[in-house]
């Protein structure tokens, strides 16, 4: 039996980590906060991929390693597989999770955070603030994927696309 903890433990820890780096340490330096959050994710992904591939033969090519991330790795973390994998066959892969668990409880409506007059609800500031908070949270799973793939011998850059919430796409660009 695999040891488990309540999902609230992970959710709370992630929320507080992001709040810590974005609001306390680097309140006015979002790029520095993002880098730290991604670095934490990288460390986690690196270690997890080590554990999940212990009894597995070496992957023969990039696609096989990416498929491992989509199936076994994602199932360990989120109890489901990536819903869709696309590639341009030139080193870029797009992994789409149609209902990404770590975004499911986040509100995109800025008015729930600060009650404000109607005009302010649609102001660019309020909307961009909510979007920025969400994107900060995504540096962590991007770091996880990059760390996992790096440990499997695939240096890459990973970014997230949330234009179709609650779906989230992770764009993996393999470095030549």
């Amino acid at each position: 039996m695999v040891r488990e903890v309540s999902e609230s433990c992970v959710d709370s820890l992630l929320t507080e980590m992001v709040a810590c780096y974005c609001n306390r340490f680097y309140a006015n330096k979002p790029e520095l906060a993002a880098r730290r959050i991604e670095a934490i994710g990288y460390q986690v992904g690196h270690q997890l991929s080590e554990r999940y591939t212990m009894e597995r033969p070496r992957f023969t090519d990039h696609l096989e390693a990416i498929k491992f991330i989509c199936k076994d790795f994602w199932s360990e973390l989120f109890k489901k597989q990536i819903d869709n994998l696309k590639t341009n066959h030139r080193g870029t892969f797009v992994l789409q999770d149609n209902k990404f668990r770590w975004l499911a409880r986040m509100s995109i409506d800025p008015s729930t955070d600060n009650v404000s007059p109607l005009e302010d609800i649609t102001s660019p500031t309020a909307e961009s603030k909510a979007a920025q908070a969400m994107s900060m949270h995504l540096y962590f799973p991007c770091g996880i994927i990059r760390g996992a793939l790096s440990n499997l011998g695939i240096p890459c850059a990973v970014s997230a696309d949330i234009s179709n919430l609650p779906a989230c796409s992770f764009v993996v660009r393999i470095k030549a």
Partner: protein
Amino acid sequence: MPPVAPRSGDAIFANVERVNAELFTLTYGAIVRQLLTDLEEAEEVNKQLDQMGYNIGIRLIDEFLAKSNVSRCNDFRETTDVIAKVGFKMFLGVTASVTNWDADGTCCSIVLEDNPLVDFVELPDNCQGLYYCNILSGVIRGALDMVSMKTEVTWLRDVLRGDDVFELQVKLLKHVPEEYPYKDDE
């Protein structure tokens, strides 16, 4: 309608959404490492972990009360017993025990023999002074704050420092009377 009986920690844990503990353990470990890199001083990291834990505790207590069917605890003794038997099991899947009560019933120890936060963890020699699990002391303090109990939580024993168990001392500083946000209409 008769009151619903309080649910055991095991029953709640069986019903909440659960995740692989390794994700939790390794994420916490990576956060501690990053904090050590950023803050440099073990004492500063301890403070930050405690603050993070406090912020988590003030929110977890809501979920705890919503799911456990615990009614009002009558005193500090009952409260810590519920935390140890139900709270730790509900969230971390481990059992804690309460011991070492003082005569007043205002100070006790919570003992953890098993702790998912420290799987895979070894402290290097340059981390003397770090309380690796200090986030737990913050969580407990924050949760108790929300039910009107001001406490001081300190570590007495730590497996990462060579002890055989984790032991947290919880001391009740003040029981704050509840303040209602309204006054009775005359």
